[in-house]
């Protein structure tokens, strides 16, 4: 029996009754819609099971695990330097950024710090992988809303950044360039001037996307007020990165924590948006790409000379201890909880990936939205499957 005064219960019953009436009038029947695992909106193999009433989602749940590779178990049989090979493949669009927090955690346990030059180059490559990652998002966003042009621009301009990463590290997608104590190599000759030119192109790309997409009426009406995440919900689901800042939380791990990286040497801005809708999330990412090009530009001018590798033993044994390091990766907060037992390899590594938390909000967020908005909301949350399944 319903307790009199139990307002929540009463409003629930009222909504159920309203639904029943709706069903009666429209003679609709519930239907289950499978989106994915192979679907262009899923960035990999995510499957969304949605229960529909007409065009409206009454219940939705993502099914993960089509790409689970067991990295947490595998790290336990690898040595510390070998782990970077694995973590490169978590978020495959911004691979270099995945290596950094793990290496920083190992360095923290060992008590070594990379030379200043290496820290500068690390920060620059970190931001380059953010630009490569997010520029693809900006292009892909258009495709999912039916605009074809932005994706061609994105693939064209991302190529310049990938070329830069390739010429510095040797790998386009999986650089595996970060080492405990520094970097594998120094920058090639002429790289700095080339990077400056590319950053100009990328700022131009951001302007183009802003004109083409963000000023577009269709884009605005498809994203404004859709998929709104309030601040407190975002916090308790552990959303991070642009998704959190789009809900009005002014928090960027690059600015708000002390790490041996060089973000504080550049002048840049953390953007937030009060709306928390799909548009806000996309807009924040666009602004962040601009800020990243600024960071890279400023750091390029002040790289000091010196070695890129600190003195570390050839065979790395990490002293016993526990360390947690997380950084502001292209997708959000990416962190590693590393437990070492003084062995060649880690005892346990917990990989806290951004997309896992970001996507865990979808059952809450998709309830009550219309079918075409599923795609927009998923696109604006921006996830990489490798980052969910690990």
């Amino acid at each position, binding site marked *: 029996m319903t307790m009199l005064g139990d307002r929540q219960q009463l409003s629930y019953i009222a909504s159920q009754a309203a639904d029943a009436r709706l069903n009666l009038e429209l003679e609709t029947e519930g239907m289950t819609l499978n989106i994915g695992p192979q679907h262009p909106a899923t960035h990999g193999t995510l499957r969304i099971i949605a229960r529909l009433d007409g065009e409206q989602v009454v219940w939705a749940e993502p099914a993960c695990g089509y790409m689970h590779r067991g990295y947490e178990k595998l790290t*336990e049989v690898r040595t510390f330097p070998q782990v970077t090979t694995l973590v490169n493949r978590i978020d495959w669009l911004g691979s270099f950024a995945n290596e950094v927090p793990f290496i920083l955690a190992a360095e923290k346990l060992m008590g070594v710090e990379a030379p200043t030059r290496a820290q500068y180059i690390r920060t620059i490559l970190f931001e380059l992988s953010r630009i490569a990652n997010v520029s693809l998002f900006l292009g892909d966003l258009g495709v999912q809303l039916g605009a074809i042009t932005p994706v061609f621009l994105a693939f064209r301009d991302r190529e310049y950044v990938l070329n830069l990463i390739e010429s510095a590290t040797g790998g386009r997608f999986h650089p595996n360039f970060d080492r405990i104590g520094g970097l594998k190599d120094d920058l090639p000759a002429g790289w700095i001037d080339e990077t400056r030119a590319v950053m100009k192109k990328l700022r131009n790309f951001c302007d183009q996307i802003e004109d083409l997409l963000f000023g577009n009426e269709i884009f605005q009406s498809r994203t404004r007020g859709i998929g709104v995440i309030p601040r407190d919900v975002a916090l308790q689901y552990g959303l991070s990165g642009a998704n959190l800042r789009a809900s009005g939380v002014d*928090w960027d791990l690059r600015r708000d*924590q*002390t*790490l041996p990286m060089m973000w504080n040497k550049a002048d840049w801005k953390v953007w937030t948006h009060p709306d928390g809708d799909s548009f806000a999330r996309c807009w924040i990412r666009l602004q962040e790409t601009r800020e990243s090009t600024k960071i890279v530009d400023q750091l390029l001018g002040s790289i000091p000379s010196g070695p890129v590798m600190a003195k570390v033993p050839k065979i790395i044994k990490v002293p016993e201890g526990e360390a947690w390091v997380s950084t502001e990766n292209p997708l959000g907060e990416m962190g590693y909880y590393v437990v070492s037992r003084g062995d060649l390899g880690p005892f346990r590594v917990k990989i*806290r990936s951004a997309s896992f938390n970001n996507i865990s909000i979808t059952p809450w967020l998709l309830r009550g939205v219309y079918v075409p908005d599923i795609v927009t909301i998923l696109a604006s949350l921006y996830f990489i499957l490798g980052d969910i399944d690990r």
Partner: protein
Amino acid sequence: MKQLSSNSETTTPAVDVVREQMLEAIKGSLGDALIDSHIKPGDDLWIRVRTDSWRTSVQKLRDVHSFDYFGFLSAIDWMPSPYGRGEDDPTEPAPERDMTIRSGYAGGDTRMQVFIRIVNSTTHFGLTVKVDVADSSPSVESLITIFAGANWHERETHEMFGIDFVGHNDLRNMYLPVDFEGHPLRKDFPLLARMVKPWPGIVDVEPLPGGDEPELAAQDSKGGDA
């Protein structure tokens, strides 16, 4: 690690005033639910709470101390792996291993521990909270009513470690097939890829040109997955 931005330079203070004060405040509100703590000056704070007050402790940390951001939840199996690092030659008898269970920071009385990372979203002060889970029937209370985001993390931990979360009514597998047996992240679960074929690192020990340490070859080998 998650420090206030004013604390900028890398000098590590011998006594971490901010963390000591926070620990005192937490001690005051949690009372005897707090068993142990650990501070690494200038780095991080760990606390361990009693299993029967896991949910209420986290609730207090959120409500009283404003740790309102849910980072992650996971578990650690502190038992050393009986298979070592998977580098044994399967044709030889297994070597003797030290199997004593040692816990990490803030101690522990059981083989497995659940831990979470929560952060204050305005001061950006974070801490790690650990809790012991009984060896015989590993279970703790679910945090799903405090942090809705704990839902998937508890499902994952349940699947990987076999830890039950009381109050979570949807502990379906996220990754593994329904009829999968065992809990892969427990240390006594063998990594089969390393069991059926000896790790190439133990055969490929040949000196590098110019180098005289044979271990380097094993270290530098770049494998794919498994």
